[in-house]
């Protein structure tokens, strides 16, 4: 659906993007990750044709992107605002028409979305009369009004209250299920794991990592397993002997433990279970995958040896 190819951009002497490439599959949610100042917003502005890249091209459905593609994109920037003196309806109609809808279609879609979010009674309210949470809903409606094929959300959860955040998250998943493609830039790693199918990590203007979320987590796993058991901790440690390192222990109740263990040498999950059987009463055991948060921090701030 969206293909970012060798995009570079600098502002005077400051390099904002350096040869960044990735692909976003149709019908997926793509997370654009990176610390502040990494170049995410610059890249999103380039995709939206707000600024031009120094080098590289953007393709949508294999076509080099031009202004006519803008009607197929919905964009909600990080810093978003509305005209305070316009009514909700006027504002949505105005932005819908700018995105290519006819007056009738725009009006129909405004009614549809206001009904869907159960806020039809706000229609004639001026934006300045709305609370922040109400305005956020209106902003989201204005972004999706023209049913874009590609939805780009820059930090969609920043400033949203938890209720709106849930609403938007559910809406994004519903849109993905309808075959829409969604690109979101975010710091919220929990939401990345919840909604993103794949991600790209940009840091210091370069892309450092991209791919499917599960694949990345699989690649970054460190052979750590968690065992939840009842019994004696000493018996547990003795059973492990030298093949495993205990790296974290939790003791939620008297004789209940959750222990994270890292494999040594040729040890594996099966051998771990084997040595423990009979020694402690195992209640659960699972492989611990690194969280996206850990992966993010690990790449952006590598631990010094």
């Amino acid at each position, binding site marked *: 659906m969206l293909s970012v190819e060798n995009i570079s951009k600098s502002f005077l002497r400051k390099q904002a993007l350096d040869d960044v490439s990735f692909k976003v599959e149709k019908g997926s949610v793509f997370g654009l990750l990176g610390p502040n100042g990494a170049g995410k917003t610059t890249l999103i502005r380039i995709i939206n044709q*707000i600024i031009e890249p120094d080098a590289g091209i953007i393709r949508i459905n294999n076509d080099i992107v031009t202004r006519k593609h803008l009607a197929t994109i919905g964009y909600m920037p990080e810093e978003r605002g509305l005209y305070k003196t316009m009514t909700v309806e006027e504002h949505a109609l105005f932005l819908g028409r*700018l995105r290519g809808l006819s007056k009738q279609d725009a009006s129909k879609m405004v009614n549809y979305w206001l009904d869907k979010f159960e806020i039809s009674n706000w229609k004639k309210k001026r934006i300045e009369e709305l609370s922040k949470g109400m305005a956020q809903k209106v902003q989201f409606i204005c972004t999706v009004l023209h049913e874009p094929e590609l939805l780009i959300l820059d930090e969609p959860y920043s400033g949203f209250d938890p209720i709106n955040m849930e609403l938007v998250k559910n809406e994004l998943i519903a849109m993905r299920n309808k075959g829409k493609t969604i690109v979101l830039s975010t710091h919220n790693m929990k939401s990345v794991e919840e909604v993103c199918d794949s991600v790209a990590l940009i840091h210091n203007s370069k892309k450092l990592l991209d791919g499917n979320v599960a694949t990345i987590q699989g690649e970054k796993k460190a052979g750590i397993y968690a065992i939840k058991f009842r019994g004696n901790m000493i018996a547990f440690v003795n059973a492990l002997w030298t093949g495993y390192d205990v790296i974290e222990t939790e003791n939620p109740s008297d004789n209940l433990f959750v222990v994270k263990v890292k494999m040594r040498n040729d040890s594996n999950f099966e051998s771990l279970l084997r040595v423990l059987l009979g020694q402690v009463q195992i209640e659960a055991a699972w492989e611990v995958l690194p969280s996206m948060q850990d992966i993010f921090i690990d790449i952006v701030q590598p631990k010094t040896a």
Partner: protein
Amino acid sequence: MRNTWIIILREIKERVASRSFVLFSIFGPLIILGLIYLMFKFGGSESEKWNVLITDKAGILDNKLLAHPDANVSYSFANDYIEHTDFAAGKRYQKFDAIVEINEKVLSNKIAYVFYRNKPSFNLQTKVQYQVERRLEEVMIKQFTTLSVEKFREIKQPLKFNFRNVYDPYDQTSDIRTWVGFFFGTIILVFIALFGMTILRSVTSEKSNRIVEVLLASVKPRQLLVGKMTGIGIAAFIQFILWILVIGVGLYLMRAFLFPSIYDPSAMNVVQLTDSGKIMSVQEKLYEGNTFNAIVDLVYERVNFSVMLTFFLLFFIGGYLFYGSFFAAIGSTVGTENDGQQFVLPILLILSLSAYAGYYTVANPESELAFWLHFIPFTSPVVVMVKLTYGYANGEAYQIWLSLIILLLSAIICLSIASKLYKNGILQFGHRLRLKHIFQWLRIK
């Protein structure tokens, strides 16, 4: 183009629906009409009131002077001789501003003394002299001739020696008319300042509430800028039309009910005892109370409104685009609204200097400086308006078009610079604007 039009419509709607627009559309022209009324009432005729005592011991005037009371001068008679020292100090005379001594020799030596407390204006002096003189004339006609007053005056008509400028035989130009030009020029500047500030506020508020990024994902920065300036310009134009309508209707009503035309025989005001208006010359009417009023005459008879309004419109458009580009550039480059206030001061200062340039041209229309100010785009909208009323000599009319072309070309250059700054500055937030930013943003492609 479609999106530019949508932006234009939004801007017009926002401006026209705003309370300040409605108030300014109503009260702006009403204030101007009020000022025009005051100028009509007092500017072209006397506002002074004079209470005059005529001492006429011999009863020559027969205690008569005017058939109808005069708006500015009221006369009382004393058939007694009053020493001017008594008049100066006497309590009973304090209500009088002046005393006119008519003694028995007046018919032969033609001398009358007038003692005043505060020196009256020249017009008032002339008026009193004229009114007393005409009454004396009637007395003398009766006493020394067998002619009727009408006949005598017909014979007495002086030879009118009409001095006329060969290049302007109908006296279409004069100093007082240049003030009309100055007024038009000042209105242009006021509209530019008001709507320029509107551009600035609109750009900075879009920037500060961050709607601009959403808009830029649908329209090009240049489209947004052009749409905004056109929309606000059309709103200004609508306001201007409303002003013309309200002022036009107001002037019409004033003409119909308050200041009738002196050239219209039905409106003539016959004031002398035995005189009839039809044999009076325009010069004579000058002294007929309020009948002739230089400013009324100027507004209704001597201003060519179609020419003035046409060039007003052209120079308004040019001036608005030229100055508007500065306001837009400032709005798009500042980081905070406070910064905007600070950077707009120099522009407002230039607008004030431009108004002064208009005033300078009124005073020195033929000076070399006025010639150059006429072509400089910062000052040309107001200076051209002044020069237009002063008049262009034969063969110099090209100057007005040259000035317009220079203004429009400058506006195009400034707009292209402004749109570049707008494009590169509009998404920069929260900084303190420095000149180096402007140079940097001009360099970014």
